[in-house]
């Protein structure tokens, strides 16, 4: 045992762990929430991740074409090729249509708030160990992104930036119980905060807890950000109320909310880097 503790391997191991822990302390006091080692790694290997993300999108398109071609008759080779080519165009068209819809919605938000500053970003990675659908975007502090910047898809709120590196940032989504968004229901004007639980997150749902038992909120109601707290701007859509239930632990009620976008399937989003009434990460208490 003594020989093991005095071995070179053990000394190197202790030195590496001590360095990593020092980096952790540095991250805790920085406003970026990321360690120096992580920042360097992401800067050096980020391009590879972008490439693999691009390949992943390519593979999913290929499988659509492959499946559709396989189902066609082998006798009509010419027609088969024509159909395959048309399908290929259709995939491109559907992707372009989706992108245009996103940009149109975004344009509406931009026209309503001309002073807001946005950065468009692509999803380049997801954490295999995270159940709450956190994702990494290919834009970071070099693009003006900072911790607590809201992330949107069209008019819909998706999440918030929680870690920033030079060329990328990590987003915690609405499906993370640690994310709390001050919100209100549009029709009744009842206010509260939107969060989620582990069980609801697994189903892709959020909740608006702490409502009075006589609440007028009903299924179909739209929940938007209220702008209180200075992290999210007012009137971004969070989602739609699917049901209102009584809380089993107290006399209040809570609304179950379905987010407006399928967070687990997002490919492109916008980061809102500046808006009227925004508080910095330090002012917001991070």
């Amino acid at each position, binding site marked *: 045992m003594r020989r093991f503790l005095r071995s070179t391997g053990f000394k190197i*191991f202790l030195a590496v762990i001590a360095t990593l822990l020092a980096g952790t302390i540095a991250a805790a006091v920085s406003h970026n929430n990321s360690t120096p080692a*992580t920042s360097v790694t992401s800067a050096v290997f980020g391009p590879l991740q972008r490439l693999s993300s691009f390949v992943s999108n390519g593979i*999913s398109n290929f499988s659509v074409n492959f499946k559709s071609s396989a189902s066609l008759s082998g006798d009509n080779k010419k027609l088969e090729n024509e159909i395959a080519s048309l399908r290929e165009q259709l995939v491109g068209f559907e992707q372009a249509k989706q992108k245009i819809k996103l940009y149109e919605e975004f344009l509406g938000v931009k026209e309503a708030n001309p002073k807001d500053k946005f950065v468009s970003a692509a999803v380049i990675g997801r954490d295999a*160990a995270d159940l709450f659908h956190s994702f990494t975007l290919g834009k970071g502090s070099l693009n003006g992104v900072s911790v607590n910047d809201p992330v949107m898809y069209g008019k819909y709120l998706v999440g918030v930036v929680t*870690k920033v590196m030079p060329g990328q940032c990590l987003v915690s989504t609405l499906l993370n*119980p640690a994310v709390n968004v001050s919100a209100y229901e549009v029709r009744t004007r009842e206010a509260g905060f939107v969060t989620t639980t582990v069980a609801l997150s697994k189903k892709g749902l959020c909740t608006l807890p702490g409502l009075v038992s006589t609440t007028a909120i009903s299924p179909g109601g739209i929940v938007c950000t209220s702008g209180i707290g200075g992290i999210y701007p007012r009137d971004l859509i969070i989602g739609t109320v699917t049901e209102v239930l009584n809380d089993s632990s107290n006399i209040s009620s809570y609304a179950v909310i379905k987010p407006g976008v399928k967070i687990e399937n997002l490919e492109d989003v916008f980061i809102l880097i500046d808006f009227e009434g925004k508080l910095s990460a330090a002012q917001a208490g991070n």
Partner: protein
Amino acid sequence: MRLSRENKNVYIRRFIFAVLILLTAALQNTGGLFPEIFGVRAMLLIPAVVCISMHEREISGIFFGLFGGLLWDAFSAGPHSFNAIILTTIGFGCGALIGSIMRNNLVTALLLTSTAVFVYNTLFWFIAYVFKGYAGAGRAYLTFYLPSCLYTIALMPVFYYLVRFIRNKTRKA
């Protein structure tokens, strides 16, 4: 200064292993690139680090673990440096055990990978769910982290034989 043939092979082998870690990290961290089974994901970097350190021993194991951990941390929502610390420890531990008291074979690889995967997932679950007091943490462990362990362990032989193949090829070359 000229490198001896043996040293040259060692450098080539380590370069190949570094590329393997890099590709594994890309495969693991890119959504849609590696299949999920009912929403359960494989944590491919763990068997990769275990198998490489089993063949390269503890000092190399530390650095391959560190490299894999840092690549994972760049995309992780978990605590700062969590992956780097755990994978460095796994790399060192597996290398040291094979160098002193265990044999290098598939059964040992299965044992070490299973231990590493369960330790990683349980620690992550404890820090990310239990310490934060989330309701339904136990259910998340049973429905996501435990199946993830099994999925990851099932893929371990691929890494074991791949690493062994690379090692044998670079030894003979």
